[in-house]
């Protein structure tokens, strides 16, 4: 299995996928941090870690579904485009193993994105001179929530990218997912729970609420978030297994 995962990374050499991922995340981070910076300049009494984390979680809802679609599409499309499925299957590579290797490869890329975001938040807060110390636990919860939501989305995107050769549909789903992630909080709770893209803000350790005309940030209880994290992980696994089942039985 390790060999199969290593081969997936080997196939991504000189494809500029990592460069593009970093570029994409940098655009998001610049946007989020500029917005946080402007907010701090307007309201100096509100300087803290919570607005930064909340700002980035909102933007993650827009950016990360699209980034997931692009990453997975590139990992799967190279096999479609190069007509390598038959070649891979004649190398006695099981389709299930190949599917798992691709999924783990995509998850590893998204994990590095989460880690990068966590580090940049910590660095930004330190440079801004936020008086409280770096909230390691909050950042860990932020990264966990982002990663679990990404895992479910990656499973869905991989299913589509593997089964449908035309990657336009996978990217269209990514775009619609980004939209759902951005406006997910506006939907009723029952609808929101059905949309995997809305969990970037749903699993965020920081929640926002308007009291009068004032936007308030508060830390969610861990005990409230854990069942949702567990539930979403189960959903991610179910989507992954269903995708693997159908992709493995498809004619090459």
């Amino acid at each position, binding site marked *: 299995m390790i060999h199969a995962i290593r081969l997936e990374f080997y196939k991504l050499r000189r494809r500029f996928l990592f460069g593009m991922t970093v570029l994409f995340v940098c655009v998001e981070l610049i946007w989020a941090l500029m917005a946080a910076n402007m907010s701090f300049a307007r309201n100096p009494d509100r300087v803290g870690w919570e607005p930064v984390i909340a700002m980035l979680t909102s933007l993650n809802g827009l950016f990360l579904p699209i980034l997931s679609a692009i990453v997975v599409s590139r990992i799967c499309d190279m096999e479609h485009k190069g007509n390598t499925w038959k070649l891979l299957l004649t190398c006695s590579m099981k389709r299930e193993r190949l599917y798992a290797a691709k999924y783990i490869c995509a998850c590893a890329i998204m994990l590095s994105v989460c880690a990068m975001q966590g580090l940049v938040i910590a660095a930004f807060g330190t440079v801004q001179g936020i008086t409280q110390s770096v909230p390691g636990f909050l950042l860990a919860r932020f990264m966990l929530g982002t990663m679990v939501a990404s895992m479910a989305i990656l499973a869905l995107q991989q299913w589509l990218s593997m089964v449908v050769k*035309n990657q336009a549909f996978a990217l269209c789903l990514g775009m619609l997912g980004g939209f759902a992630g951005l406006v997910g909080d506006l939907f009723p709770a029952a609808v929101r729970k059905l949309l995997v893209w809305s969990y970037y803000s749903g699993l965020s350790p920081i929640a926002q609420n308007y009291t009068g005309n004032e936007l308030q940030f508060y830390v969610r209880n861990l005990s409230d978030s854990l069942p949702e994290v567990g539930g979403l992980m189960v959903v991610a696994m179910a989507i992954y297994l269903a995708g693997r089942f159908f992709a493995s039985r498809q004619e090459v």
Partner: protein
Amino acid sequence: MLQQCISAEWIKLRRSYLWIVMMSLPLVSVCIGCANFAMNQGVLKNEWYSLWSQVSLFYGEFFFPILIAICSAYLCRLEHANRNWNMIMTAPVSVGSLFIAKVAVISVLLLLVQGFFFILYVAGGMLIGLQADLPPELPGWLFRGWIAAVAIGVLQLALSVRIRSFAAPVGIGLCMTFLGLGMYVMNLGLIFPHSLLTAGMGVLSQEGLGLGSSFLFYVMNLLYIVVISAGVMYRMRSTDVVS
């Protein structure tokens, strides 16, 4: 020669189901825009103008540029598969015809999308129950949006001809969308294709472009279309294909 190339491009699009993508993205943005307008009618009192501000926001800022990127990548998808660039470059047609045919086809596709968006906007407004006449600026917004979309389409085609991956040009296009939004906010909207779309369609401001700004808008779009097309054709003539 050009006509044959255009016919070939249409044949390649048959049974591609690209129409699903072309219809779904405007449909979602109009549905959400209309829902938001209907729920906030106490604040949004400017009838069709307010509705336009809601439906065009997500469409013009996010969905339309991505739709253009997806369509452009799709038009080059077949060439990148199965070493088809070798075959197409040995066809007895000029390189210019090959690229201009793609530009012509993407222009028609984007015109259809704009037309569909117009129908959805009017239907949405009528369903909500707007009584006033349609804004007289509407044809201008749609036409200028189409012109800017063609400029973005040419830019995306240039990327898609160069890059084999389907998703990479779409990702680059998305980054350019945010860059365009930033440039529009910094009052540099008339010098970047993606912010030209924002300015031309009246997405963030429905006040309309003045005479000078309108002239600059058309000149910049034309400049982008001509310069990028010339660059791509020069590159296709002078560089060997990589398949």
